[in-house]
């Protein structure tokens, strides 16, 4: 088991390194640089611009910039965001938890919801219930992310004003609220983004869980279970599910990048100030350091998440755990 963990950790590290290097290169190929975006004003002389670029180290050869950046990252210094006029580390520290909350909640909910639906489907494969759920899920799987988000936005904030349309807290009233009211306010702002992202993810996750269940159902031990006198339904819920869960956990971890992509769109529609939204804006402003840092953090988070899922699945599998 220990060797397994070590091996996976090594893999994850390599992956993160590769990703950040490529991102760094890509970002630096962008025409435009932070200086021109952030400080552009009419009448600025070329000499001043050059000075700014030198100040930010943007005139050095790319290899040197990369080396310096890696060194800084190791030390925890992520640089300065020119578009937001704040240290990158501060920005990341602020937006990371928000996206983590969004993504984490959605993942957990989709997983749970997915299992329920998958089990209901697997009890009678090919039956009416299976096919109906399958169609609904396929539609959810095929709908454009932003479209669903917009529909949710319009339905639940505009047509039926149940929830606030944007932000994480009420911009005007929050400061004056009591602790309890603040909690409620935060929750109200969470509902729609999480619900949207969950709906989008459940489709994919549930389909995978159903497949995993159907894969184990022809196993010999399922036949044994039924020969013992279990009903088909109990056999699926007790025996098949336990087995199918193991790969499902790992594979949910693999789904994280897609979840983050979806979060990006949801953040944009609901103006949820998380990593995705910040990254999108930073890209348009060519804020190299911020973009690279955000992509780095995202990759690390995703790689860690996938690793954790993998390890959890291994820990739950007696065949791996007990030797």
């Amino acid at each position, binding site marked *: 088991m220990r060797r397994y963990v070590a091996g996976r950790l090594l893999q994850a590290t390599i992956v993160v390194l590769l990703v950040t290097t490529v991102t760094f290169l890509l970002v630096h190929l962008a025409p435009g640089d932070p200086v021109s975006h952030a400080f552009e004003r009419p009448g600025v002389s070329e000499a001043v611009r050059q000075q700014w670029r030198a100040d930010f180290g943007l005139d050095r050869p790319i290899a040197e910039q990369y080396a310096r950046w890696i060194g800084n990252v190791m030390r925890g210094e992520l640089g300065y965001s020119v578009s937001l006029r704040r240290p990158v580390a501060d920005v990341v520290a602020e937006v990371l938890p928000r996206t983590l909350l969004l993504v984490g909640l959605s993942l957990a909910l989709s997983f749970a919801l997915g299992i329920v639906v998958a089990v209901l489907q697997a009890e009678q494969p090919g039956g009416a219930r299976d096919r109906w759920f399958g169609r609904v899920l396929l539609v959810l799987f095929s709908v454009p992310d932003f479209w669903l988000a917009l529909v949710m936005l319009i339905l639940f904030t505009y047509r039926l004003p149940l929830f606030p349309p944007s932000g994480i807290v009420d911009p005007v009233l929050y400061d004056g609220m009591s602790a309890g009211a603040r909690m409620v306010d935060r929750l109200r702002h969470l509902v729609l983004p999480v619900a949207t992202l969950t709906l989008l993810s459940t489709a994919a996750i549930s389909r995978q869980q159903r497949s995993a269940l159907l894969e184990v159902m022809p196993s*010999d031990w399922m*036949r*044994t279970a039924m*020969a*013992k*006198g279990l*009903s088909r339904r109990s056999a699926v819920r007790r025996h098949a599910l336990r087995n199918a869960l193991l790969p499902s956990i790992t594979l949910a971890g693999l789904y994280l990048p897609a979840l983050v992509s979806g979060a990006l769109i949801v953040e944009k529609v609901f103006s949820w100030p998380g990593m995705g939204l910040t990254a999108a804006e930073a890209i348009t402003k060519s804020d190299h350091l911020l973009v690279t840092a955000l992509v780095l953090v995202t990759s690390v988070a995703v790689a860690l998440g996938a690793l954790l899922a993998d390890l959890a699945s291994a820990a739950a599998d007696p*065949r791996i755990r007990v030797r």
Partner: protein
Amino acid sequence: MTTPLLEIENLHTYFYTDNGVARAVDGVSFSVGVGETVGVVGESGCGKSVTALSILRLVRPPGRIEPGSVMRFEGRDLLGLEEREMQHVRGNRIAMVFQEPMTALNPVFTVGDQIGEVARIHANASKREAWAKAIEMLKLVGIPAPEQRAGEYPHQLSGGMRQRVVIAMALVMNPALIIADEPTTALDVTIQAQILELLADLTRRLGTSVLLITHDLGVVAENCTRVIVMYAGEVVEEASTVDLFARAHHPYTEGLLGAMPRVGGEKDRLATIPGTVPAPTDWPKGCRFRDRCPYSWERCAAEHPPLYQIAGGHTSRCHLADEPERRQHPHPPLAAQRGASAA
């Protein structure tokens, strides 16, 4: 005569596949008495496993038990039962022991859990009671340190031990009938003997009837009082064990006996039966064994043989019962001839 425990009459189990209808079990009838151990012998593909699954109604689509089949157990019509009532029977009154102990056990549950589950299902046992029962059963099947073993997972046990666990699972509710489908085929030879002995011993003590399915005549000789020989979805011979070995009638049975390796026997090559079993989607007309039979004649192609009475309790599906003089004129079976000409 007392009512038999299990009566199978005219069982037909067909599979409706893309390649046609596979008549896996095509008119099988037999019975098992209380406390009896009956053997069912045949090559793979003869329908014996499907028969076993049919009894417990575990045949899934595209297979189904055809109307006209009758299965009676303890006087009740099994086919007329609701699914819930059938679940009551499975594992409780009739238990099954499968062939591959490694895959028959769920890898993510402990052995104790899986044995105890039977008690939880049928005796409404609490977790603790079920666990205690599991340990008791492990002791019964001769597994040392049962308290410890109960907490282990299937992959931690050897093949022989796993099969003991499977037997333990089958015996929890003290069923009236155990169907053992090739219980030792996947095990080492030395372990095979142990397991069979265990099974025989326990069933004798508990008075359990056993339907022992195997392809190994040696197993049958040691453990069964009566034998049913199956071929191509049908029963081709039925007799007491003694009668079968002393006075086998059907040419297929003769072939099987001739193919048995015998310790201390002559060092000749094992006689094999030329040819292979025909496909269940396409049983030949007339006698299904005729292409491989050294005695067949025109009648065998034209007329499907019924089960003839040879002696008391001995039947055989062969026209030789009607025209025994034909036995004096053996010839190379048609299948062998075909094989020779193709070379």
